[in-house]
């Protein structure tokens, strides 16, 4: 006989299990409509792989897993996909989520499938893949994908595999009835798991309030190395960590996994599902669900298709909605009220509880905590619920974490024993959610801070680089200027002047030629313009446009211009030829001028100083006379004052000069 351990705390609520095990598992049948939520498990929701209007067969994959922690969804019966839309799902929030809706055709036609009874031939990875592809997620409550849970990390060695057949919550008998009716499949499933995990021992833990189930299991397990362990009933011994402590005496460390102490736990329902998936090739499309409570006439267990609306299932058990006060998915301790009775049965729906008001009265209002300490005695994880309650009220999140709030399994034992009816678990759930939200916010803030700082740094760097470039350009310009100064500061200016001069010289040299060209060009362009204008005029005349007159004047003008241009060209050519004739004897004219000048000089040189002075005087007197005449003429014709003034100044200046010349003449004569 195995040594059985005990865990701290725990309670003994009324079991209420007998109502639903009087009859064998009934088939719930095929409802007209199946609603399959895409997320029935922990992890990423599956992605639909069928289209609206498509016919699907029973067992066909209708949604593919996304990511590692995810499982596919299968059509629970044959029919047509009538919608993929948001529907209410069984969730305490009452929110909707994407669902695939199948209108069943009642034929229940299977897709081709085959099992692998000889699973020992398969390697572990293939077995795990089969489990994952069968859409198996923990059927006890949380819905963690089984394949992930069974993927043992290499650094963990598993001594014990535990199949959890505890079912400690009141009212629920889904696992109990499985043990009674399908003990063979449970044992076979446990053997598959044992093959997969290779533990030192395989245990099936069952509370002692299920003697028939235990007997059936023991009968089925005889001859195998699987041990069925019976232990005293106490809530919540079905909690994973509690069950491990009961069976092995080991405590899973806070925040750790069962694998850390060498244990793997699987739910009994999941074990059967794994057996069906491997041996018969049937994916998880139906499950055993307990329908119980005083507002159903015939409480019993049903084999129900996933996606069956709860109302349909309840009606099969004789539901009387008028008697019930609410509808609970799960048990009375950890279950939650579903928002509507049309929500579908999902993979984690182990029980539907439809109690009457007398059976599960609405809780009376919470009263003040009297610090009785009963909650601390009941707590299966040895927490201090009343302390946590105070901290939760005061939102002292740090203190809550210091008091290991996250070890709380939300079993509800503290709320159950509380004489003040304080909904303690709700405080803990809210606080946990708030702390997790804060952690996420803090992570996001940290991320934002890093991005902000990175951006600041980038901007600063860009500014710095710009500044450096500017400085480099400035330096380069200065350097160049200095070099230019060494060669001769005004070099570029000088060069420009030289260039301009050269240009001018070229123009002067070829001046005549370019003038001729210009005139020729002018003639050509004027002719062209005249042609286009005439063409336009002709066109306008043909069309009888209003513009004829305007165009006519335009043509006349252009013709005038052309004539002027032609005349200018002819004049130029004529003058050019004349100039060429002049240039034929340039030597003679220049010679004559030179001779004239030389003769004048010779004459001048032969003159005496007196004569010279007299001659100068005479010249000046002539100039003076001329100026005076000019002045008189200007005055008469009423010229501008400025001109008259200028002429007066000239006359005065010439008078002075004449005086000087006279003196010079007198000096010369005296000499």
């Amino acid at each position, binding site marked *: 006989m195995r040594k059985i351990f005990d865990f701290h705390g725990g309670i003994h609520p009324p079991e209420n299990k007998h109502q639903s095990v009087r009859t064998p598992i009934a088939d719930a049948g095929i409802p007209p409509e199946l609603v399959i939520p895409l997320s029935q498990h922990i992890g990423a929701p599956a992605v639909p792989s069928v289209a609206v209007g498509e016919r699907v067969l029973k067992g066909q994959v209708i949604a593919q897993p996304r990511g590692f922690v995810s499982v596919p969804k299968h059509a629970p019966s044959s029919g047509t996909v009538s919608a993929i839309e948001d529907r209410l799902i069984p969730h305490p929030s009452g929110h*909707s989520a994407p669902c695939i809706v199948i209108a069943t055709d009642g034929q229940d036609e299977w897709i081709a499938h085959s099992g692998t009874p000889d699973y020992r031939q398969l390697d572990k990875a293939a077995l795990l893949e089969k489990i994952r592809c069968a859409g198996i997620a923990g059927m006890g409550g949380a819905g963690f994908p089984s394949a992930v849970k069974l993927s043992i990390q290499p650094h963990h060695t598993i001594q014990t595999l535990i199949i959890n057949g505890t079912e400690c919550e009141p009212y629920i008998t889904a696992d109990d009835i499985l043990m009674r009716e399908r003990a063979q499949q449970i044992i076979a499933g446990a053997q598959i798991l044992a093959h997969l995990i290779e533990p030192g021992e395989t245990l099936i833990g069952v509370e002692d309030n299920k003697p028939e189930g235990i007997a059936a299991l023991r009968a089925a397990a005889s001859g195998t190395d699987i041990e069925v362990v019976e232990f005293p009933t106490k809530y919540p011994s079905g909690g994973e960590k509690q069950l491990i402590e009961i069976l092995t005496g080991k405590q899973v460390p806070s925040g750790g996994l069962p694998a850390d102490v060498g244990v793997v736990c699987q739910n009994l329902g999941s074990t059967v599902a794994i057996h069906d998936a491997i041996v018969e090739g049937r994916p998880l499309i139906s499950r055993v669900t307990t329908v119980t409570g005083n507002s159903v006439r015939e409480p019993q267990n049903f084999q129900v298709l996933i996606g069956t609306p709860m109302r349909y299932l309840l009606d099969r058990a004789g539901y009387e909605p008028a008697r019930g006060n609410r509808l609970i998915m799960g048990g009375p301790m950890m*279950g939650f009220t579903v928002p509507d009775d049309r929500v579908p049965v999902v993979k984690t729906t182990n029980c539907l509880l439809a109690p009457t008001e007398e059976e599960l*009265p*609405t809780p009376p*209002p919470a009263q003040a905590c009297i610090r009785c300490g009963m909650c601390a005695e009941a707590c299966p994880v040895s927490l201090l619920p009343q302390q946590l309650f105070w901290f939760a009220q005061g939102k002292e999140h740090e203190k809550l974490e210091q008091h290991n709030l996250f070890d709380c399994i939300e079993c509800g034992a503290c709320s159950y024993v509380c004489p003040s009816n304080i909904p303690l678990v709700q405080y803990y759930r809210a606080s946990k959610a708030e702390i997790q939200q804060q952690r996420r916010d803090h992570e996001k803030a940290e991320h934002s801070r890093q991005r902000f700082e990175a951006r600041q740094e980038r901007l600063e760097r860009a500014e710095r680089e710009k500044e450096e470039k500017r400085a480099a350009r400035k330096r380069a310009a200065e350097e160049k200027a200095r070099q230019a100064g060494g060669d001769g500061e005004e070099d570029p200016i000088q060069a420009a002047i030289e260039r301009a001069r050269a240009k001018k010289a070229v123009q002067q040299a070829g001046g005549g030629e370019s003038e001729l060209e210009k005139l020729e060009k002018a003639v050509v362009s004027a002719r062209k313009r005249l042609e286009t204008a005439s063409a336009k005029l002709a066109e306008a005349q043909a069309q009888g446009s209003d513009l004829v007159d305007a165009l006519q004047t335009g043509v006349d003008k252009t013709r005038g211009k052309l004539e002027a241009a032609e005349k200018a060209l002819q004049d130029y050519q004529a003058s050019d030829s004349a100039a060429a004739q002049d240039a034929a004897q340039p030597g003679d004219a220049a010679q004559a001028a030179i001779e004239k000048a030389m003769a004048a000089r010779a004459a001048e040189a032969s003159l005496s100083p007196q004569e010279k002075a007299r001659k100068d005087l005479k010249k000046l007197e002539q100039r003076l006379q001329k100026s005076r005449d000019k002045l008189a003429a200007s005055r008469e014709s009423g010229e501008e004052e400025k001109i008259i003034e200028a002429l007066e100044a000239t006359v005065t200046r010439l008078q002075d000069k004449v005086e000087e010349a006279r003196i010079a003449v007198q000096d010369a004569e005296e000499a």
Partner: protein
Amino acid sequence: MIETLTQYPLLAALLALVGMAAVFGAVLGFAAIRFRTEGNPIVDQINDILPQTQCGQCGYPGCKPYAEAIANGEAINKCPPGGEAGIQALADLLDQEFVPLDEEHGEEDPRPAMAFIREDECIGCTKCIQACPVDAILGAAKQMHTVIASECTGCDLCVEPCPVDCIDMIREEESLQNWHWQLPDPVSRKVEIIATDNPDARDRAA
């Protein structure tokens, strides 16, 4: 030497004390230089509490400058995104009295917002990209821009520079993904925990 010391115990004590003072002084002096803390640790702690939206509603160009200002005596109630919880955390850290949020700088919105660019209307001017303090907007000149949802802090700074007014601030609605349990209303009879087939409670109700 030793004889003198044994003869004058006072001198020995003096020497010992002076020697110890010198040794410890040297050790402390070395430690002060060797383990000098970079920056102002209190600023980092304050900055850690601030929500890092970089929205500038406090009047400072980012959370870090406001953290520095708080360290120099600025009021702690100027951060609307941080809200009451943020002020409470700052008050605890700085050992100050809790003061309600200064309404002048904005109101606390419990639902986080996120910028959304109506992409058909975007003209690709990059003004919002330049305004974003955390580089959460993707795009290029004359190309459509879009907000990287996971990086957006909801600071609102991109809305104003948009010349065609195509940026909306979308408040997050409660959904299945962000739903969580709320603390029970202490006076309400409606509680979500079921553990009520407690015989005592049943007797009382009956």
